């Protein structure tokens, strides 16, 4: 919360016991126990609101339509790379206002082209984003890149845990050891068996294991499509399609 909101419109703290900032008439400035997170010499009579990121200076319960690229109601859209059409409205399966890039790398895969396995990316509790690949102890905990695949898919491919597999998306490819697990179960969608696999991000490019040539330099996000959410600008890295084979 912005600390201006801890004061009433006259610049006096709402709670005398827990003061953060207040207006000082003598100093003609906001002073207090905290650094004012707004214009410090703006007197209360100017009515500068605490929510400095909104034009009106106050908080919003409902956002105006103009503030969002889509909305105002919650909606479900399928990812751009999805094995199914959106069951709610198949004619408009995915979000029409996302930002798509148009470079030669920005290709999307479809099941018709053989990209039939759903892949998702995530981080592990042992890691902090990509940084910890330069920390020896974190590298010891998770020494190598791996791809989590269901037992059923491993049987189909004839792959054992620890053997290398290759993922190919419409953009690129990625090779790592298979982690055969019961934790990811195959799904039945539209009467068809669909496999989901998990791809932790962390390894690749440069780090302790990469510099010793124990891990490949390729990164997980070579595979993911750059399709960007129109409001939060979050790329669609959590659901995309790949082919999977023995490496």
């Amino acid at each position: 919360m912005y600390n201006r909101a801890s004061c009433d419109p006259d610049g006096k703290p709402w709670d005398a016991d827990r003061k953060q900032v207040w207006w000082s008439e003598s100093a003609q400035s906001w002073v207090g126990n905290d650094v004012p997170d707004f214009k410090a010499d703006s007197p209360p009579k100017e009515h500068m609101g605490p929510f400095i990121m909104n034009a009106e200076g106050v908080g919003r319960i409902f956002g105006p339509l103009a503030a969002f690229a889509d909305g105002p109601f919650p909606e479900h859209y399928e990812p751009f790379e999805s094995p199914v059409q959106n069951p709610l409205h198949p004619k408009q399966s995915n979000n029409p206002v996302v930002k798509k890039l148009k470079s030669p790398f920005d290709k999307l895969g479809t099941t018709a082209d053989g990209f039939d396995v759903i892949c998702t990316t995530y981080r592990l509790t042992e890691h902090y984003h990509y940084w910890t690949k330069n920390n020896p102890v974190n590298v010891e905990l998770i020494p190598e890149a791996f791809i989590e695949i269901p037992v059923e898919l491993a049987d189909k491919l004839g792959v054992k845990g620890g053997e290398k597999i290759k993922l190919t998306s419409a953009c690129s490819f990625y090779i790592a050891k298979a982690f055969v697990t019961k934790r990811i179960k195959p799904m039945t969608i539209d009467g068809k068996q669909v496999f989901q696999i998990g791809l932790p991000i962390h390894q690749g490019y440069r780090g302790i294991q990469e510099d010793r040539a124990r891990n490949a330099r390729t990164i997980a996000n070579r595979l993911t499509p750059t399709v960007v959410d129109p409001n939060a600008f979050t790329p669609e890295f959590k659901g995309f399609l790949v082919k999977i084979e023995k490496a």
Partner: protein
Amino acid sequence: MSQATLQIVKISGHAGTVPGAGVERGEQVCKLVDTTTCIGCKACEVACLEWNGYQFSDTTFDNTYQTMPQTAWNYWNLIKCNEHEREDGTLQLLMRKDQCMHCADPGCLAACPADGAIVQYANGIVDFQQQNCIGCGYCVSGCPFDIPKFNPATKKMFKCTLCADRVTVGLEPACIKACPTGCLHFGAKEDMKVIAEDRAQQLREHFDFKDAGVYDPAGVGGTGVIYVLHDVKNPEAYGGLPRDPHVPWVVRIWKGPAKWLGNLAMLGGILGVTLHYLRFGPKEVGPERHKGEQP
């Protein structure tokens, strides 16, 4: 620590009484590991490594989240990860912090022949004193949890000290301090048992864990590390936690009756030789020489 004999209650391979034993009568300390709230972040492994000053060692991915197959001489704290299918078809990823259990009746100490290489403090911590260790590895055969590990470079045995150095000066063990979920607790054994039983009861009554319980095996006199398990009837599922651990009977016989029988046999031998000497006198060497020998 090794000189603080007033805090020591048991000494390995030691003839006679333990000097000063019984002077300190503090609470027994205990780690409580609630396996139901572990998220497998391995912060305890990192804390253990850093506090004890061990360096990075190479590991290999082995189709598991587990850092390495077993604890090592320089890696005393290991989260054992196991995918466990329950009878109703649901899956659990069981994670158990594996380390020295600090048994009240330590098998390692019973098996150890080196005077003072393993001691038990009044607060229950079982600690290896490497300056007295002869590296024979008998402690391995005495341990039902497969914990003591051999350092081939120094030829000494190592294991978790329950951070005896920290506990002595009033700090909790490093692993406890690092735990982000509060699944690790540390305190007096009596208090930890109360917390553990409360949690097990909560799991039985409010969650789908009808057999939740506390692992504090009586076969080794209770342990200084106790677990809350989802299913206390199946401790083996948690990376081979023994159902009913005991100090092996071989060690018991070897360090008990066999030791006295051995001593008796030795005394008997000396007695026999003496009697033989008294009855027949010394063995004389004859004057005859073998062929080809010079006079």
